[in-house]
């Protein structure tokens, strides 16, 4: 295959991988502190995209402000989900939490179907995000460069929070041993709320990026992306933030490159993502970064 096209696909893969990475971070952090796979997380991404669409296109706010509203709204939904659905089940068996998460997922999807209808909506992004620029024969929408760069910056910010702030120490301590932390007099619920807030904010940013790249949004858009982000988190080592990002990029690259190299297999590209997940679970369930949760490393 042409080198130019290969490079173009690599860049596309990086962009797609960033979106998976952003959402995977949320999955992995919640798992780290609660040992819960928050299946509603993919739908938080959808909430972020829809609230931005709503604020920008139906309320007429400037795009940047709409994105902020989307992020804040998603954070609110994430925090409320924890308060209403997960907190009462803190001491319940893990299966109950899982079922509740799936229930919240259905609830969010159907709520937004009722509110917005299920016909896909056109998401309008501002010119500076959708401009195409051309190098030789490579055409790139500017978003494809912005997205990975912003993702790496966010990753650095999240790691800084985790390792350089008091709340970060608390989060890592919670991941290590939740009961001892409570005995130490730390308000575990408040820390968990911060984790949900960060994760949901990231998912919302991922949702906005996704909507900018593929400007057709619908209430069910979070399902498949959420599942793939979860696969990415497991691939990278669930509980590890760096692992989530690595897993996200690996998944993004493979998905794009599989279709680029074998176009006849284009119908099976989702199968590859989940095939990876199965392989990882069979041979190295702790993922690439390994489970360092026991050692308090995130």
């Amino acid at each position, binding site marked *: *295959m042409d080198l130019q*096209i290969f490079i173009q696909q690599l860049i596309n893969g990086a962009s797609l991988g960033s979106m998976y990475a952003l959402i995977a971070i949320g999955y992995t952090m919640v798992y780290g502190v609660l040992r819960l796979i928050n299946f509603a997380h993919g739908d938080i991404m959808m909430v972020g995209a829809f609230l931005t669409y709503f604020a920008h296109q139906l309320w007429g706010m400037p795009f940047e402000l709409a994105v902020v509203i989307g992020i804040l709204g998603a954070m609110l939904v994430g925090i409320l989900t924890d308060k209403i659905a997960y907190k009462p089940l803190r001491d319940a068996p893990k299966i109950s939490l899982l079922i509740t998460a799936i229930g919240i997922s259905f609830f969010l999807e159907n709520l937004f179907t009722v509110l917005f209808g299920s*016909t896909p909506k056109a998401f309008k992004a501002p010119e500076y995000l959708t401009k195409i620029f051309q190098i030789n024969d490579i*055409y790139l929408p500017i978003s494809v460069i912005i997205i990975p760069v912003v993702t790496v910056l966010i990753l650095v910010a999240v790691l800084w929070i985790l390792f350089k702030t008091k709340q970060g120490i608390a989060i890592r301590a919670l991941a290590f041993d939740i009961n001892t932390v409570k005995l130490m007099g730390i308000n575990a619920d408040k820390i968990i709320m911060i984790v949900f807030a960060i994760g949901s904010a990231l998912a919302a940013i991922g949702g906005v990026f996704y909507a900018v790249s593929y400007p*057709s949004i*619908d209430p069910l858009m979070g399902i498949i992306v959420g599942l793939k982000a979860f696969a990415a988190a497991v691939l990278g080592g669930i509980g590890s933030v760096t692992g989530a990002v690595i897993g996200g990029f690996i998944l993004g690259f493979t998905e794009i490159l599989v*279709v680029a190299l074998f176009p*006849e297999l284009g119908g099976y*590209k*989702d199968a590859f993502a989940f095939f990876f997940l199965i392989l990882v679970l069979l041979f190295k369930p702790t993922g690439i970064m390994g489970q360092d949760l026991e050692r308090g490393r995130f």
Partner: protein
Amino acid sequence: MKKVTSIAAALALLSGIVIAKEVKIGVVLPLTGGIAAFGETSKRGLDLAHEQNAKLSNGDTVKLVYVDDRSDKVEAASAAQKLIDKDKVAVILGEVASSNSMAMAPIAEKAKTPMITHASTNPRVTKGKKYVTRACFIDPFQGAVMAKYALDNGMKKAVVVTDAKQDYSVGLSKAFKKAYTAGGGKIVKQVLINSGDKDFNAQVATIKAANPDIIAFTGYYNEAALLAKQARNMGVKTPFIGADGVGFPELVKIGGKATEGFMYTDHFNEAAASSPEAKAYVEAYHKKYNKTADSMGALAADAYGMILNAMNACVKEGKASDDKECINAHLRNTKDYKGITGVISINEEGNAVKSAVVNEVKDGKFEYKTTVNP
């Protein structure tokens, strides 16, 4: 004498009221889900037709029982089953997507309940069935229309993009390929996508490398819009040709300027409405909904008209208006029904032999180009 006549009149009236009953038509549509736009517009056309004509010649009222199948074929099948078993409908109308209609057809066939799909074009929906009819043309014809239009416009090299998840797309691609190569065209590449996918950059790269004269896309509007947009973003200037699955306002809303020049075959275009039935429908549609009258709504209205036609014929023969066998016989034998989308005659396979129109997206609107007769 007066007393007798008045009693007789009262009795006649009473018997009229007692005898007039409710006949149910079960409607399965994708009112939510990936192809909700098709379901919504179908419902609009159907409601309009029902509003204008809800009574049979013997006074029976026709009732529409709607079930939403959420664009899912499993749900479509259970919807059909529910309508037959629980609601005891006389006829089933639906669905839009061939995959979903094909899930419903065996159920209707087994229960000997007539089913008419207004928009499914894959030949397998009616193949080998006695109780399934359709109000539209089938894909071997539609694929040939697409192929001929492309070849007539000098496009001799094509890339075919198929939606692997939809029977409609798979069947139509096959039909297009057959007609295109028979007419002297060359298929330089075949590319697969999945409905529900959003990222087609890899497929676009493949298309770009193959450098065709035309891209034949046989899937639905959502993917068409995204594919067109990503293709134009990557500098691919090749024109697109599609079929009745793409002709929706959402194509332009989502795809924007990238969809300019997108050609597609369809069942109906309100700008080309020439028959009195078509003109009346378009006018009533505008009045009620203030929207462009599209093909799905027109086809649904035609299917409804055909059902009422069949029911009235049964009543004329002295049979009950919900006699399933009789309704089916008349549906399958429909000849020269003056519909909105054309004059409809059903052949022995249960398919309609009708003309297709070719439209093109121009300035964000669907411009009528030509009609192709079978």
